[in-house]
């Protein structure tokens, strides 16, 4: 709980201003805390009189915290390739490992892995633990979770990172719960505090309206899933040396109660929109399915993927996997072109981290212009065809 020393408190009100949660106010010249307090500690740091402190109950710290060393990433392998976010994890993982002067390892699970482990070494892994087994052909939470848990318990890395993909977000919580440690989802920034090796995990919350930095101070490993396309991918160096270990899982650990019968790729949706550099997205302003064709043409012209607002998906102009926003996908492309999208916050939270945002909309008051890097107020049925024509001209 937050302890306020009323003798020391000078009633200056700095803490009241500092508190994000309106959990503290000055009443009759002293600070008083209410039930909204989350013990975030912002006020403690702000108090010049030193009147505030946080009293935490003695927490059973895992006895061997210091024995956990090294950075480990889970390298996702699907349909014969290593998923791009894995190389981004190697990028941030390498940085953290170099800072801590510890090895960077990768866990690679699948069936028919080929040279994937060697690629992970080229992109920065010092050690790759791989399991190439027919039982891993389809993703199951249990088998993937069992193996990752076992490797973590044997190797004791201080940090474990995975991509915040459909797979990562599904089975990493199982692993963290089995290991009785903390997990932070969808991180967009990671740093290790040099003094104590604590991983500072920053992520969006409340649909992206608020950023929060989270620590896992008492247990190891410190686990996080990382949003695709946020971290910079590692540089390839085919001369890099690393060790590839064929990990042998216990046969019991290759059993899953859940059975995957088959995997279906959605025909028109083979492009995973979270992975492209450019996304062209359309919304209600396209008016109908035929109008939406314009989006596809522009996407073709710029070599981008097709995105959509919820309104366009609900109108069945395009399938759900293309939906961007709170109830769809979160994307981080270099360029996002929003056509006929008004920019409701539910949409904006899914795309606001794009490097450049272009908005084309008839309504100059549309909220999409608040997040746009470049805005064109106009009729998209005039603007977009012209844009397609000019881009084709440029590209010859």
């Amino acid at each position, binding site marked *: 709980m937050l302890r306020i020393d009323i003798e020391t408190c000078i009633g200056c009100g700095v803490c009241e201003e500092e508190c994000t949660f*309106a959990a503290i106010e000055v009443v009759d010249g002293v600070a008083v805390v209410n039930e909204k307090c989350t013990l975030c500690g912002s006020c403690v740091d702000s108090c010049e009189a030193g009147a505030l402190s946080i009293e935490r109950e003695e927490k059973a710290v895992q006895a061997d915290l210091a024995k956990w060393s090294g950075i480990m990433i889970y390298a996702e392998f699907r349909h014969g390739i290593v998923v791009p976010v894995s190389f981004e994890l190697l990028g941030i993982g390498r940085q953290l490992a170099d800072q801590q002067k510890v090895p960077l390892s990768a866990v690679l699970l699948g069936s028919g892995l080929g040279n994937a482990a060697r690629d992970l070494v080229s992109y920065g892994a010092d050690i790759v633990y791989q399991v190439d087994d027919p039982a891993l052909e389809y993703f199951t939470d249990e088998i993937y979770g069992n193996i990752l848990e076992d490797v973590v318990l044997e190797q004791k890395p201080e940090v474990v990172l995975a991509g915040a993909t459909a797979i990562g977000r599904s089975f990493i*919580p199982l692993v963290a719960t089995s290991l009785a440690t903390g997990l932070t989802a969808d991180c967009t920034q990671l740093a290790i505090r040099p003094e104590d090796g604590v991983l500072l995990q920053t992520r969006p919350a409340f649909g992206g*309206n*608020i950023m929060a930095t989270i*620590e896992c101070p008492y*247990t190891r490993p410190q686990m996080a899933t990382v949003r695709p396309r946020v971290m910079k991918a590692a540089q390839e160096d085919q001369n890099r040396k690393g060790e590839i270990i064929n990990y042998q899982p216990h046969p019991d650990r290759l059993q899953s109660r859940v059975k*995957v019968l088959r995997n279906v790729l959605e025909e028109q949706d083979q492009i995973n929109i979270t992975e492209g550099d450019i996304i062209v997205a359309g919304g209600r302003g396209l008016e109908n399915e035929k109008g939406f064709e314009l989006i596809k043409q522009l996407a073709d012209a710029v070599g981008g993927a097709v995105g959509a607002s919820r309104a366009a998906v609900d109108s069945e102009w395009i399938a759900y996997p293309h939906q961007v926003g709170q109830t769809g996908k979160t994307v981080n492309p270099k360029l996002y072109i929003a056509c006929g999208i008004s920019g409701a916050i*539910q949409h904006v939270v899914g795309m606001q981290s794009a490097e450049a945002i272009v908005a084309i909309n008839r309504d100059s008051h549309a909220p999409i212009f608040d997040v746009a890097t470049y805005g064109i107020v106009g009729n998209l049925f005039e603007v977009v065809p012209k844009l397609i024509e000019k881009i084709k001209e440029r590209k010859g």
Partner: protein
Amino acid sequence: MNIIVCIKQVPDAKDVRLDPKTNTMAREGVESIMNPFDRHAVEEAVRLTEQHGGTVTVLSMGPPQAEAVLREAVSCGADEAVLVSDRSFAGADTWATTYTLGKAIDKVGPFDLILCGKQAIDGDTAQVGPGLARRLNIPYVSYVRKITGFENGAIRLHRLMDDGYDEVEIPLPGLLTVVKEINVPRVPSLKGKMKAKSLSIRTLNAEDIEADAGSLGLPGSTTQVVKVFAPEFKGERAMLEGTVDEQVEQLINKLEPYL
């Protein structure tokens, strides 16, 4: 089929923001609602019991006011409601939450299926469903978008993946987290509303669920929020002017590095 649906009362996330000047959360006019994904979980549970018999129990961990979302779920077809509430639960992260929910579900009694929304819109973690399944040692499937059958004690379903979907079979008892395309939730019926109004809600506190005090709430959490701040918006903000041709020309020049 006896189904427990875990639901959460959340602030309507689209209205929650930090005032970048004062760094405080603007809460005026922020409504408390049932987590949107949980609505779909309730609906799916009601449909399953309509087809296969059984009962739907909605369960929510939260402050006393969370009773509102439980009553709402009952008005939409749930049979029973349980509120898991205690001051000591405050500040729980997903680890402490799954512990608490697991203990509460042990008390509520046997079930065939647990349904959860894929994630709550305040935290967006998607961790509670899988974590709870682990606590209860039952199999689970995340991101379920369609239930295609129920035979010989197993459910067949489609699980949404990044590149399509998997056809999956899960034996019961088990846990599913659902995405919104699984169904269109019904609106409350008059009969449901009457029932919701009069239903007495069972309340369980820390003692009732025989929880270990050190595993609850903030003290029982493995993670801690140490800082919250407003996201930074970057980039120049330029509204392009002129005729359509001029605007398109300017835009293409600006986009040169990306094309």
